[in-house]
């Protein structure tokens, strides 16, 4: 792969970032409403995506155990508790199996 291609990939990646945050007009009206509603479903979709695209496969028991234990803490709304539960779930199932 040439250096020019690498520079092009870097430029495209940065332009897409700067376009969204500094160049394009701020969301207004209906778009602003959608953007306001977006965070929770977006993170949920990315959680599902990271499970489905895992190198170990979406049926990896330890990965599913981590996600399930994290879900159990959902109502606590504490990142620390969720991370601890996810890690504990992963290590427990990895150790058991």
């Amino acid at each position: 792969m040439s250096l020019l291609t690498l520079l092009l990939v870097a430029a495209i990646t940065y332009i897409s970032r700067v376009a969204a945050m500094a160049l394009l007009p701020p969301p207004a009206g209906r778009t602003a409403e959608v953007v306001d509603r977006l965070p929770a479903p977006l993170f949920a979709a990315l959680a599902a995506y990271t499970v489905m695209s895992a190198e170990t496969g979406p049926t990896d028991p330890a990965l599913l155990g981590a996600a399930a234990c994290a879900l159990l803490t959902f109502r606590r709304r504490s990142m620390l508790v969720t991370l601890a539960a996810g890690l504990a779930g992963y290590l427990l199932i990895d150790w058991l199996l």
Partner: protein
Amino acid sequence: MPSRRDITAATTSVGLAIVAFGIIYGASATPILGGWRTLLSSAIVFSGSAQFAMVALAGSGASETAIVGTTTLLAIRHLPLGAMVRARMTSGRVQRGLLSWFLIDETAGLTVAFDQPPERTLLVSGGIAYLAWVGGTGIGMAGGSLPGVGPLAEALFPVLFIGLTALAASGRLDVIRSVAAASGTVALLLLWPEAGALGAIGVAIVTAVVGSRG
């Protein structure tokens, strides 16, 4: 409201998981791109999904046009992420433009979910993520490896996003939209695995468009 310990735990977890992925990237990209280009790619692209795709395509002999086309598609995900982060910022265009360098899925999530000045959260979490990514790449290039840690690092990302969903969901409708988005993403990826992260973001946008504000 998230505590300082929540923020520290989330940022540290993101940093550690990114170091692990950086090591994997450095080790896998070096035979294909060569040493200095591997490090340069992490320093100037700073996007795991784009870089892993780039290396996989280059390694399989794909054309340079295919590499540029694929990374362009992957870069589209920054538009909704950036719009979400920008809506919370009060700084000027130049500062936003500079901070946009640190826009990745994880830092966007931390910036939106935590009730802190978004510029500072993006700068701190993005700075840590950047150093972790470039540092991890360097360790991987040097032959470093973390046996058994790759799968654990991989499991940290869904856990992190579940935590971010919990923080961002402010009512029953948000929870319903989140369940719908996660279920829709699983269904989409079962039917069309190539849809990838962009497909997941598309599902989330559709869910946000369809759901009515309660």
